């Protein structure tokens, strides 16, 4: 990480040396996201101000269509806000180049998508290796080992050679989680990671995330519809119709 910060030192709002820990991992300021289609303009997020501190476990709740996934894709640097600023470690990302953004996504963030997004033509283990492919200097052996470890954590060691089409929805969800873990990210952004799992498996995944958060200090933002799960996290952020309501 230090390396990356050093190479992009020309960007604005330099963090004070050694003060990185005190800065929020993610800060969204006056965020607005408007989706423009031919016929209709959808305000998916409106005046969102949100700070995620290092080591926090935050859950995001709200009814369907209120903008939770949109929020996560902005946090994951997959999309740009229509207005407002996003800061990662105290630095605005709007000015980042394509390469810098790609590096941030690869090294810092693990993303679990609501609809898994596995590559159907790759086996389970190859899917989990995908983020590691974009790491400079990581050999094939290490990639494989990390992928297998991650699959072990989500209880899928027996399915490494399967293809996504041969897995149940819950199993695919777990592959997607393993893929987010494989890179050892600082932040995990999980969009309903237990949405397709039965309660037992859901509990296990929740425990896994809690463990990562507590033992490894991974910052986690999780979208969920489950109040029980939300209660286990440190903070709940509620949305309604694109706005933050609590």
């Amino acid at each position, binding site marked *: 990480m230090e390396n990356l910060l050093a190479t992009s030192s020309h960007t604005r709002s330099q963090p004070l040396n050694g003060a990185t820990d005190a800065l929020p991992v993610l800060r969204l300021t006056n965020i607005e996201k408007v989706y423009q289609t031919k016929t209709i303009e959808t305000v998916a997020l409106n005046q969102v101000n949100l700070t995620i501190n290092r080591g926090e476990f935050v859950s995001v709740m709200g009814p369907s269509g209120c903008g939770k996934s949109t929020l996560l894709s902005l946090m*994951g640097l997959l999309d740009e806000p229509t207005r407002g600023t996003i800061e990662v470690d105290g630095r605005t990302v709007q000015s980042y180049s*394509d390469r810098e953004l*790609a*590096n941030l996504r690869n090294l810092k963030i693990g993303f679990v998508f609501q609809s898994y*997004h596995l590559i159907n033509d790759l086996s389970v283990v*190859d899917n989990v290796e995908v983020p590691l*492919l974009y790491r400079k200097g990581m050999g094939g052996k290490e990639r494989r080992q990390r992928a297998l470890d991650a699959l072990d954590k989500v209880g899928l060691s027996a399915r490494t050679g399967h293809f996504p089409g041969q897995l149940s929805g819950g199993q695919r969800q777990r592959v997607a989680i393993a893929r987010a873990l494989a890179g050892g990210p600082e932040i995990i952004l999980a969009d309903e990671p237990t949405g397709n799992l039965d309660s037992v498996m859901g509990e296990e995944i929740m425990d896994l995330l809690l463990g990562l958060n507590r033992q490894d200090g991974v910052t986690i933002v999780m979208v969920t519809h489950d109040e029980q799960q939300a209660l286990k996290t440190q903070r709940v952020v509620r949305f309604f119709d694109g706005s933050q309501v609590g």
Partner: protein
Amino acid sequence: MLRHLFTLIWNRKRANLLLISEVFFSFVVLFGVGAVLITAAKNYLAPHGFNYEQVWRLEVRAGQNLKMPRAELDDVLRQVKALPGVRTVALTSGNTPFIFNTNNSVFEYEGKKSPQANVYDADDHYGEAMQLHLREGRWFAPSDDGSNHRPVVISQDLRESMFGNGPALGKIFTWENPGKGPAKPEDEFLVTGVVDAVRMESDFSAAIPSVWKRLIPYDTTHWETANVLVRVAPGSGGELQEKIARTVAGVTRQWTSQVRVMDNERLHRRLYTLVPVVGLCIMGLFLIINVALGLFGVLWYNISQRRAEIGLRRAMGATGAGIGWQFLGEMMVVTTFGVLLGTLLAAQFPLLNAFDLPAQPYLLAIGAAAAAVYFITALCAWQPSRLAAAIQPAVALREE
């Protein structure tokens, strides 16, 4: 990353099989066209082995079912030779250069067969008229009149295949399968000279082993037509041609004659040879354009099918450029499979010595076809890959 591409391509083999076979067929077509073009170009650049400039072909016809008395024929030759502007005249058979008339045969020397060789009748002035380049020995001459065998001059390529590095002059060979009983002296060929290999078919044809048999008076007794090569001074034209025609008519009224310029016959033959080659090239070009458009379409479709994958890879840390390279790289790997299959097929031609051609043009054609195929596929993959590179991760991930 290359391993990853192989895995991806292997897992998508059904979709890629189509691409691979398209590449394979393009390669084979390009190889075929390339081999023809390279062979033609290589021949074109080689010397003809004789000088076709300022040579005319005088055709003298005695008329239907009329034979040519040798004495009158000799008169024609002598009088034409005497015309101002005429350098040399030579009597030969009908298979003069660049016209559609060939006469070939296989010979035998000490039980060893020669390759198929062109056989020409030639008199003592032929070598001079055609400006053949003597390498060994001499052209036949009146001093050969008393010879017990028929004197011949052979081309260097025939010499190499019949006599190798050993001496050729003074050797005697025969037709293939000389038959039983004592051979007739005129069917035993005594080598008096060796000339450079000649390319007499067209500008684009290869050298063909050749034998020039010395005409003996007996040969012409059954002729109805005589072919005379006339080497003229530079700048000679229609006026001299008319004079020659009048000279022939002056010897005997029944005979008709026609003068043709060998260089014109060469150009005519060149055109005739070029037409199918150009046709082949145009057909090949259309085929390749077709394949290229098909490839372009398939790649375009592939990318629209794989938008979610692109978005995902971007989300996992691939740069836009990285995605572009991945798609280009996949296509190059697929191309490599197609080219390898094609090379496997194409390599049979030099290995099996097909069409009796040397290996070099085939190898060149393989290289050229491979380069062209890589170029075409890279060109086709370029735009779709750039398109893929420009896809924004969030947009791509939405669609499913």
